[in-house]
């Protein structure tokens, strides 16, 4: 099965060359929201309860989990976070059950994603940064212009590209849907 790659260089809606990995300089690039990271407020996770395994450096948040970030709001039923060691950074997060994500893209447009599960992974191997968010369990992404269904829906954050499979893309203002080989090349590349 071919994996469709939806190229969304600025937020969700513009084209860029297809890549899967990128050479990383000393500070691996990410597509984090622009701005001074040192001055931005911290990310916040709220939940009813939580379990911390200090041997495994793992936190499990349970019940009404809410993540508040400058440009992202995420809710789910439970979430597993691999706690960074001293000087490290988050490299694995699992959000599970009733995952709802609302975020504002570079154009200031609000996007809405729902799925049963979302997994964030960050890895630096040599000079290559891999940073992905994988949505599974009937993921649906609603942008200003499209409703995108894909199983899975993988966002390559390092490249700001979306990898779609078994996808269906519907314009928000039309009843016509596009998908598979009928999809517009202006929207995604095979």
């Amino acid at each position, binding site marked *: 099965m071919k994996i469709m790659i939806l190229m969304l260089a600025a937020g969700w809606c513009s084209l860029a060359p297809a890549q899967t990995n990128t050479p990383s300089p000393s500070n691996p690039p*990410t*597509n*984090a*929201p622009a701005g001074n*990271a*040192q001055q*931005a*407020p*911290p*990310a*916040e*996770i*709220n*939940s*009813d*309860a*939580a*379990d*911390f*395994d*200090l*041997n495994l450096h793992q*936190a499990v*948040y349970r019940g009404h989990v809410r*993540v508040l*970030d400058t*440009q*992202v709001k*995420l809710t789910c039923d439970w979430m597993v976070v691999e*706690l*960074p*060691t*001293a*000087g*490290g*950074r*988050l490299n694995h*997060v699992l*959000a599970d059950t009733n995952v709802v*994500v609302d*975020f504002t893209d570079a154009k200031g447009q609000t996007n809405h994603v729902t799925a049963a599960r*979302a997994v*964030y992974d960050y890895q630096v191997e040599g000079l290559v940064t891999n940073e992905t*968010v994988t949505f599974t369990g009937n993921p649906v992404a609603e942008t200003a212009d499209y409703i995108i269904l894909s199983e899975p829906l993988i*966002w390559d*954050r390092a490249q700001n590209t979306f990898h779609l499979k078994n996808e269906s893309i519907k314009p928000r203002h039309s009843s016509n849907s596009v998908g598979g080989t009928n999809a517009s090349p202006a929207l995604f590349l095979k």
Partner: protein
Amino acid sequence: MNFNMAMFCRAGGVAVFFLAATGGPAQQLPAGHARDFTSESYFEPPHEQQVKMKLTGAEASPLPGGLLDVKQLRLETFSLDGKPEMVVRAPQCFYAPLDGVANSSGQLELQSADGKFTVEGEGFLWRQNISSLTISNRVRTLIDRSASPGFML
């Protein structure tokens, strides 16, 4: 998990040794109100000389059932190379040294040694033998931007 954890407890300036492992020597607990007590646990062999966790309290009062009413709890965890990892603070808790369990319905604050990760909540259960901390209510975690440039997204 093998709970072969020797603990060293100093209470009221009198050193009291006891082993939490089954089959260990007879155990003694502080008899009265104590100040500045410390309990340490160590990594398993071959790193049994390395402190894994240090629990301290400004005051400890004995309660029935071998419990201690601890004021100003401070719990520190360390990596194998001796570097501090996490610090947990609570104004009050009940600590069962023989079981290695502490709990409270009150406030708790956890902070990573580098300060990038802080957690606060109400009500907790600390299980020393598995290094597990459960926070029961209103958990709020703050992750510094340098550890999370953009949370997931």
